[in-house]
């Protein structure tokens, strides 16, 4: 296909409009009348283009492999006090930081996956006004972003989450406190019975893992002596954690632990 060479030059030139004859309807047997066409998504006109798009999605359109090597750096430690995870990539550190330290409650050291969940947690757990207000009005905010509903208790909220938002009833970041058994401190993971059936294993495992993130203020109030553990995670981390503060030592409402001289809001 050959275009006139001066085409691009003519981009800015004003041209006079040719005179137009008023439109008349076509006379039979002729039927042409100019019209703008609209195609619906399933129209066969779109077939070739759609196929092209899906070949691209399935990655077989091009055979170029973009490999960008992850830059290795010399091993370094997480700089947060009390955490001694070691990393050899910046990405690994970044993800660790975001998971464990970014949305961490400065009062009780729990980590949350989002700022929204952290805010909700702080409000419900550590705001002394909250309980007073909660008696008068619905204060428990729905955990789903974009839903403005508020509830009288965390139980009502849970029902709402399950019914309206189809959340799992054991949603990890809103789990009843009582699910945590007291065995978890006396029973380190390595002692689990290997022959236990899978689901039992799971339960135990979950109890070990969940506690760093769940929020459930109402039940916790009933049991103020229940220690709140920080993130127990890799053996490395755990060891250090334990050397700092015995997990059984705990003060006050179960919310704060030890003397928080090292607490750092991150």
């Amino acid at each position, binding site marked *: *296909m*050959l*275009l*006139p060479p001066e085409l691009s030059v003519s981009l800015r030139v004003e*041209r006079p*409009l040719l*005179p*137009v*004859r008023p439109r008349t309807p076509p006379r039979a*047997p*002729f039927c*042409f009348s*100019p019209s*703008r*066409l609209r195609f619906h*998504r399933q129209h066969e*006109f*779109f077939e*070739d*283009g*759609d196929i092209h798009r899906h*070949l*691209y*999605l399935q*990655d*077989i359109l*091009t*055979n170029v*492999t973009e*490999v960008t090597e*992850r830059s290795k750096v010399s091993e370094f430690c997480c700089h947060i006090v009390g955490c001694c995870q070691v990393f050899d990539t910046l990405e*690994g550190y*970044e*993800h*660790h930081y*975001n*998971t*464990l330290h970014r949305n961490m409650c400065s009062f009780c050291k729990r980590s949350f*996956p*989002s700022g929204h*969940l952290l805010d909700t947690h702080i409000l419900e757990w550590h705001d002394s006004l909250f309980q007073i207000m909660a008696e008068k009005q619905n204060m428990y905010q729905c955990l*789903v*972003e*974009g*839903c403005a509903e508020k509830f009288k208790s965390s139980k009502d909220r849970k029902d709402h989450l399950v019914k309206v*938002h*189809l959340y799992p009833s054991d949603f*990890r970041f809103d789990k009843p406190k009582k699910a945590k058994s007291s065995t978890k401190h006396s029973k380190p*993971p390595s002692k689990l019975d*290997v022959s236990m059936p*899978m*689901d039992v*294993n*799971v339960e135990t*495992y*979950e109890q070990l*893992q*969940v506690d*760093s993130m769940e929020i459930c203020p109402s039940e916790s109030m009933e049991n103020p002596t229940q220690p709140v553990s920080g993130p127990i*995670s890799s053996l490395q981390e755990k060891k250090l954690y334990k050397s700092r503060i015995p997990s059984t030592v705990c003060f006050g409402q179960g919310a704060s632990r030890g003397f928080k001289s090292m607490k750092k809001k991150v």
Partner: protein
Amino acid sequence: MWSRRSSRYRPDASGLEELRGRRREQESALRKARRQQQLVSKRLLREDSLVNGDGQAGVDIAAEPLSEQEILQLLRDVQRGTEERKTLLSRLRQGLQQKETQQKFVRLEGSMRVLIGLFTSSLANIQMEAARCLHELSHSSDPTVAEACLPATSYLLTYLSGHSVEFTELCLYTLGNLAVESDAVRKQLLPQGIIPALASCIQSPHVAVLEGLGYVLSQLLQAREAPTKIIPLVLDSVLPQHMLRLVSSNLELGMGVAVEFSWCLHYIVCSHVNNMLLISQGIVSTLVLLLLELASMMSKAVTEGLELLICPLLRCLSNLLAEDETEGCKVQIQDERLLVALFLFMQYFLQQHPFLVQECLWLLNNLTADESIFCSAVLTLDLIPALLQLLPCSRMVTLLALTVLCNIAEKGPAYCHQLHQKAVLPSLLSTLALSDGQVVGQSLELLHLLLLHLPEAADDFLSQAGLQALEQHQDNPQLQERVRALRETYLQPAAASPISRASASAAVLPSS
């Protein structure tokens, strides 16, 4: 980072032919699926550089499928924290690259709960590896495997508000894969708040996250129930204005982002739910400016994959131009440069991606149907020869090119005069010689318009053996009436009749 292109398809000397065969197979499977309205695709993110401790590339090893015992043992070991847990999980992930292992995994009771437990743990590297396992499962071609991931969706959505680029990207592609699995999945994702979650995630500054988000959204928008259930929610959110922003910003860096969001816009526009809203947000000028910018990039080096962006943009604009006038939102475009852009696209893609030519001609039709400014510009920019060169292409291209010529001819004698001067008649004679009824019919319409407005063209038509070309079709029931009308009204050997002369000159009067 993550490689979009699986290295399995990297061609070496011997693999090239295999690659082509594979592509042909895939293409025909896709066409079949589309005709059955079941065209869905999933994307696979795999880290190319995942080379294990034992020195094997993660993607290339076709390991033996894991047995149920092995899976069970792996899960137990991971839970007990013996050995390096991450290594164990990696082994599971590699196993899950195989369908057989996937099926065994989801059939094991409690396995998904364990995986979700790991996925929601606060151990970053464990969490990441578990997310990769979920992603492998979400990519499965077995619907039962992907549906087993349903309990993970609330967490996947929760993590979208996190800050790790790679992890968020992984969650997005997993969600995108699950979203096309069945409407049961979408019936769960919508109440779980996927639209608000995407609406806040779209403010991320990271290109990789944005591309993944565009992927999820495009997957949702392709759903059959999208026009009633999903698009209204999307239009009601802040997503459209961000989509318009992202589709045009940062083209060089974020071509992938622009591609995803332009397809999203296409799915929305062609569903015709509330295009007024998009128009009021400036979609038309955004699209026009973007197409002009892309056209100016055609002369530069990097054009690979541009058709993936141009195609949906053209579709949006064409469909928007066809909005009903009755709704009071007739779209008007007056920028002639768009015309130049269209012809540059057609010239560039004619060989490699001919499908784009018909999309361009569709837009050209919608531009020239009502706007005489574009008809005039096609003539004065001397684009008729280029248009005529397209006539021998595919059937659809021929039809659309003829329709555009009709649009121009319909505008009156001044236009027909120009068309005649640009030698339309010889091309018209060659399309008249074709056997396709619709193509010949459209050619007869064009011939009629030319002769109606420019009776003197009859002499040239006759001198080029036009009558013989017409006679071929005089027995075709769909064409014979028009053939006869043309012969009787315009092509009498005794030169033009006084009636047609009179009507033609009368027609000139009002415009002059």
